[in-house]
């Protein structure tokens, strides 16, 4: 069931990715991105295949799988798909829903402009990527 625009804006304002935006900016974001819903067990991004988008989870959970092996899970407020878009390369992992999922979706070609329009989102993304890089390095050592 889709939320009202008002509820959606409230939900988005509570996600860390959008937490530094003004209310009118969050409303714009809700307008620019498309709300989508997926059942459990659906593959949203496919390892090695192009044709992607940027997704922000508003409810539910996904598993990140490389060569069929689960590596991580993402939940509310997490995002995925930006790596492939920004690198211009196919995804290196499958992203599969573990249960009913609700996301906001932005088409790949729109991501750069979106980030330029909302520097606080870019800054949040930068912080998250830094954390991912730390974790990846910790793993390896």
């Amino acid at each position: 069931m889709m939320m009202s625009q008002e509820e959606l804006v409230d939900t988005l304002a509570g996600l860390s990715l959008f937490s530094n935006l003004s209310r009118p900016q969050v409303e714009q974001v809700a307008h620019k991105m498309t709300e989508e819903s997926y059942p459990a067990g659906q593959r949203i991004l496919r390892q090695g295949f192009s044709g992607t988008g940027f997704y922000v989870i508003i409810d539910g959970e996904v598993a990140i799988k490389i060569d069929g092996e689960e590596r991580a899970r993402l939940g509310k407020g997490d995002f995925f798909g930006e790596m492939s878009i920004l690198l211009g390369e196919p995804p290196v992992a499958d992203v599969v829903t573990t249960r009913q999922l609700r996301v906001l979706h932005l088409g790949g070609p729109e991501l750069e402009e979106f980030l330029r329009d909302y520097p606080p989102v870019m800054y949040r993304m930068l912080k998250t990527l830094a954390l991912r890089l730390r974790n990846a390095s910790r793993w390896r050592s």
Partner: protein
Amino acid sequence: MAIAETDGSRPARRCYRAEVPRSLEEKSSALASVPLFAGISSQSMARLADSAGEVEFGPGQFIVRQGQVGTGLYVILDGSVTVLRGSDELARLGNGDFFGELSVIDQQPRNASVRAAEQTTCLALASWDLLALVESDPAFALNLIRGLVGRVRAAGEHHRH
């Protein structure tokens, strides 16, 4: 290495650099060729040329030490460096590559050491100047994000082997 030592062109150029600091225009044109600064505004470029300093490192000299909290980001203008964790060599970086950004972004200690592999000239950008650039110039922030994304992916792929 005997050939490198008797090749007069590179050492001569380095001497020139060390003795005569580059003008702002020369610095700007050197910076414009660095991918991290591609497409940034002319104001950002001017600010960068003004605030960033050039630093020289001798072969084997540590530029960044693992465990220390970082105070800045480095861009290699001429030379090459080795990225080390403990005694493991993680990567080798050359002209136009940058390092040290992670510690500036998350204010945590450096996760690796970086050592000059040869005589190396770096551009050093202080934390506050870097963060000011991130906030004022979306093109720069996007370049930085792209750099991080590439590293996250490389780290992940490395892990798979």
